[in-house]
């Protein structure tokens, strides 16, 4: 026993003193350890941040969550804060509709574009596509909103709505019930363009994970490129594609500014894509200023933020997990 202890003491001495002839190593190692501890602490930051945001939102929206039943809150249709009525349903529906339209409009062309870039195009086309997509992604939301105001709303009002009135009027979803172009559709179009770069680049990366050998194997027996894509490439990437779409939807859900400017901001449950709507982010943005005057108003708005956050987090985490697995090191 004694001898073992002796041995260990000796060992320690050797480690700290044996190298004293080269003090720089010891100092550098200490420096390393200190840095390592500091750095480690810093990497905890992201997780802490998520937790703090969630907690604060929950805490601050607590008053309204206990004051009303979930049914009244989430399914209620009346929003009159000064009378104490907080029904989120129109806003939830507004969010849902505008996001759905945005995703539906964006997905087909973006998938096709990603397929084109990955399977058919020359390197040259890809090299101009990348800057274009980067620029589209860099344009600030408020600029998209201005474009929406100047180009999309008039287009909906002047072209799409009359056309729909003429051809599709019998279908409720396409009914034109209001004179202006400030609508779910306008919001959806703007959202679609905003999430397009994301969908395209992620789906492109996913397609690139399919080994060339597989494509060659199919082409070698005389399949056309499209047959190869349809039967060999796409089946392999379906989970990733779905995840990409879900991720894009989570982005669309949270987009505030651009949608705010074109969607009409009328608190109603939309019955047609040509109706105006009022998504949750717009609700928060528009009313945050005067919320302090009315009791429970602030809790209500924070509750709206909480709902938004939870849905987005769920979408985001699920899709990110899938994409991390699919793309591995290439997760961009």
């Amino acid at each position: 026993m004694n001898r073992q202890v002796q041995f260990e003491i000796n060992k320690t001495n050797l480690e700290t003193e044996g190298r004293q002839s080269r003090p720089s190593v010891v100092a550098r190692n200490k420096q390393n350890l200190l840095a390592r501890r500091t750095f480690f602490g810093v990497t905890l930051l992201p997780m802490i941040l998520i937790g703090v945001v969630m907690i604060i939102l929950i805490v601050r929206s607590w008053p309204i969550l206990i004051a009303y039943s979930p049914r009244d809150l989430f399914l209620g249709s009346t929003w009159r804060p000064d009378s104490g009525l907080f029904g989120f349903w129109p806003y939830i529906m507004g969010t849902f509709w505008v996001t759905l339209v945005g995703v539906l409009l964006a997905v087909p062309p973006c998938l096709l574009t990603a397929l084109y870039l990955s399977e058919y195009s020359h390197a040259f086309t890809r090299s101009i596509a990348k800057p274009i997509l980067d620029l589209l992604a860099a344009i600030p939301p408020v600029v998209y909103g201005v474009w929406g105001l100047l180009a999309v709303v008039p287009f909906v009002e002047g072209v799409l709505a009359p056309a729909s009135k003429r051809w599709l009027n019998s279908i409720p979803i396409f009914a034109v019930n209001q004179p202006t172009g400030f609508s779910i559709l306008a919001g959806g179009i703007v959202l679609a363009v905003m999430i397009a770069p994301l969908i395209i680049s992620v789906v492109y990366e996913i397609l690139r994970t399919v080994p060339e050998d597989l494509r060659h194997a199919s082409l070698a027996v005389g399949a056309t490129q499209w047959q190869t894509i349809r039967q060999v490439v796409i089946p392999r990437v379906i989970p990733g594609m779905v995840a990409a779409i879900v991720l894009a939807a989570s982005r669309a859900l949270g987009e505030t500014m651009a949608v705010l400017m074109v969607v009409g901001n009328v608190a109603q449950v939309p019955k047609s894509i040509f109706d105006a709507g009022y998504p949750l982010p717009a609700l928060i943005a528009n009313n945050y200023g005067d919320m302090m005057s009315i009791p429970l108003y602030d809790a209500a708005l924070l509750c709206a933020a909480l709902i938004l956050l939870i849905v987005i987090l769920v979408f985001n985490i699920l899709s990110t997990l899938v994409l991390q697995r699919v793309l591995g090191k290439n997760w961009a």
Partner: protein
Amino acid sequence: MKKRWQRRHILEAFVKGLMVISFLVVAGGLGAILWTILANGFPALTWEMVSQVPQGGFYLGKGGGVLNAILGSLYLAGGGTLLALIFSLPIALYLETYLGDSDWGQYVRLSLDVLWGIPTIVYGVFGFTLMLAIGMRASLLAGIIVLSLVELPIMVRAMDEVIRRMPGDLEQAAFALGSTKLEVAIRVVVRQMLPGIITAILLAFGRGIGDAASVLFTAGYTDRLPTSLMQPTASLPLAVFFQLGTPYPVVQQRGYASALILTIIVLIISIGSRLISARLNKYTVK
């Protein structure tokens, strides 16, 4: 062996046509957006707009400019980017040098992706709530802090992406020479990653300067130039928003011009970062 008019060939030609159209629509979309902003904003883009602050009655159509917003945005985004950088660089370096592909590293990356997905309005609300709690008023500083939160995940991910692509041999070579992990991190990794790091910074800056929802409640708004950290400050996105919200066409025109200014700034940053990274990439190992 001739003739390609089998059904599957026709189908392929059709699908390929759809694909090309989709691509052109997307590419054309960028052109359309830029053109709309340019065409509508340019007429009202005067020297006055970029050199003056709003004078009395600016929102009713009288004189002035949006210099307050231009400078405000630059300060906000600049400060936010700087603050984010202070935390991003260590996180990114640590991720690569120590964590690599470990489980813990994956958790951190997942957290960052989640943070990136949180809408900016939530960050704005969060920031505002904190501000109320500690008694802070809407100010440049508050805006900077919230923007740094918004920019942090973007910056770290962009850096991480760049750092992960680093050739492993470079690190190995440095280790072989007897460096500690810290030394490798600083001397070798940072230098190799410099163009990527700069690109990440510029990318985050570009996002920060364009965001309205986060600064809406936290930075406030004012017609004056930003002179103090503790005072509210204007920002370009909000300037656009407010000008467009008035019923006066003259003011709305100026709103378009402000949007154009913002777009130009963002374009400069985007194109600039491309050029910088191309130039600096001369020295990096592929």
